């Protein structure tokens, strides 16, 4: 996997930073950080599916929502313990991931992106109509059991979850499977020509992504304590996830984390000046400019700076 000392050092520093943060910042900032953590989880999930393979998902909330709704319904309507509900939610999300996989076996590029968008909109409408007694219909559900109390505990839980997912995904993409997934994005027939099963590779990427999405969605709903279809299956939510990945740097796993934190704080710091939805104007504008100027994201910029520093130091 080519792990070097500085990889361990960087992840260790990141973990240390997360562990120390509650001592350094206010409760309000911590709540912001919790959102950043969950956004990072969703962004990692998107990155696993779309970052390398070239199968862009415009309907990622479909998977997240299935995880969130399953866990919420199980705990609230059927009185299932949270410890059991979350694993079930993850499994259900992975089954839903198979549904998203089906079209990916035949179509790619723009067409695949559209199918995922259609999946999300379909889910949005079905959730409100089918069994509203279970899903809560248009208004959604509230009073769902929460896992933690207080900002500090919530922050630790989300941080541990995000950190474990991030390291696991990062290690995964450094294996030969990660290389094969990159190749899949570059030239699918070449991958097939080298004797690898593209179906298995795609299935692997989709399952990994659905696993993370389900886990993130389930924990997220048990943090929020409520769920509503309009906030979840929303194109603005897709936009936030994709922009987090792209600004950070797609297919790197570290990038989406950077992007998620960058975006959440950008939004928070704009709040005093622009209270309403106008924030999206500036935020989207910055995202668009960054994307046009550097499509590989902040991660690539940092790496470039690091390498030039490194070269200067060794000269």
């Amino acid at each position: 996997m080519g792990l070097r000392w500085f990889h361990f050092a960087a992840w260790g520093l990141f973990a240390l930073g997360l562990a120390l943060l509650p001592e350094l910042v206010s409760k309000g900032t911590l709540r912001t950080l919790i959102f950043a953590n969950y956004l990072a989880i969703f962004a990692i999930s998107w990155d696993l599916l779309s970052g390398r393979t070239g199968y862009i998902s415009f309907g990622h909330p479909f998977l997240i929502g299935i995880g969130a709704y399953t866990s919420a319904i199980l705990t609230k309507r059927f009185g299932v313990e949270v410890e059991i509900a979350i694993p079930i939610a993850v499994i259900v999300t992975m089954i839903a991931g198979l549904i998203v996989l089906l079209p990916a076996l035949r179509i790619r590029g723009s067409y695949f992106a559209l199918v995922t968008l259609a999946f999300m909109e379909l889910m949005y409408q079905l959730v409100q109509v089918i069994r509203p007694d279970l899903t809560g219909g248009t208004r959604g559900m509230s009073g769902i059991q929460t896992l933690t109390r207080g900002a500090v505990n919530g922050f630790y839980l989300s941080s541990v979850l995000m950190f474990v997912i991030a390291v696991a995904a990062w290690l995964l993409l450094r294996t030969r499977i990660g290389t094969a997934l990159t190749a899949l994005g570059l030239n699918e027939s070449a991958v097939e020509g080298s004797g690898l099963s593209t179906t298995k590779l795609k299935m692997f990427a989709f399952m990994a992504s659905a696993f993370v999405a389900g886990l993130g969605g389930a924990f997220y709903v048990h943090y929020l304590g409520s769920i509503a279809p309009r906030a979840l299956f929303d194109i603005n939510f897709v936009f936030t996830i994709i922009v987090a990945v792209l600004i950070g740097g797609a297919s790197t796993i570290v990038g989406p984390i950077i992007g998620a934190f960058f975006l959440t704080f950008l939004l928070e710091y704009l709040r005093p000046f622009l209270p309403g939805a106008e924030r999206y104007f500036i935020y989207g504008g910055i995202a668009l400019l960054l994307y046009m100027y550097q499509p590989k994201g902040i991660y690539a910029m940092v790496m470039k700076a690091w390498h030039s520093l490194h070269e200067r130091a060794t000269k």
Partner: protein
Amino acid sequence: MLQILIQGMLLSGLYALIAVGFTLIFSVGRTLNLAYGAYLMLGGYLYFWASQSLGVPKSLAVLMAMAFGVVLGILKFRLIVKPLKGDHIAVEISTLILAVVLQAGVILIFGDSSKILLPIVGGVIYVAGAPVTYNMLIATLASWTILLSLYLFIRRTDIGRAMQAVSMDTKGAAICGIEPDRVNLITWALSGGLGALGGVFFASYTQLAPSMWVGPLIISVAVVIVGGIGSIIGTLIVAHIVGFMEVIVVSVLAPELRGVFTMGLIILVLVLRPQGLFGREEL
């Protein structure tokens, strides 16, 4: 029964009008312009601002909205699509971001609440007991006229033929002395104008809201995907399938399910027949 037929005809006409601009870009440039819905939104808002705040005559306001759409289309091609050099996925992502930015911009200027647009043409006529507003009737007639003239434009004029050529094979067209960039620019301008016009009618059919761009975008996507690339007739037919099914679902099943059929159709067609029902074989 007759009511379903009339309502279906009118809604389908509106949908065909909305979708045709999207079809044009997808057929010629092969890119999905996810900010297409934003043309509709901006067209609708500009018409609202011109006619209801400035008091410009309605027909002039419609023309202004169309001109605005043309300018938007040209700007978008110059500033976003061309610099990205045909990277489809990059164009799609940046147009999606642009759509959200434009939505926020509209909220910034006009506020978050939805606005009711006065009908472009007032009056109601009763056909077999079913109320038909002149507004919808005009939208339907306009839609048919525009589709027909667009069909003739693409088949008969030089620019139209050039568009067809670029749509089939960009390199081949370039070899024959067609400038793909110019053709693309014309297509984007045309699509912007048509989108803005569709937006004015769509907004007077429903209402003006900053989030109104998502619905028509999905309808356009459905029509283009199901109709297939490069088929204006396909657009017309599928707009009627989508429109009629929606009216039938709403009046027979439940109003909440109105979009379910459309989504299901997109998924089914993309999985079973990715080239669309009337499109050329490709992918």
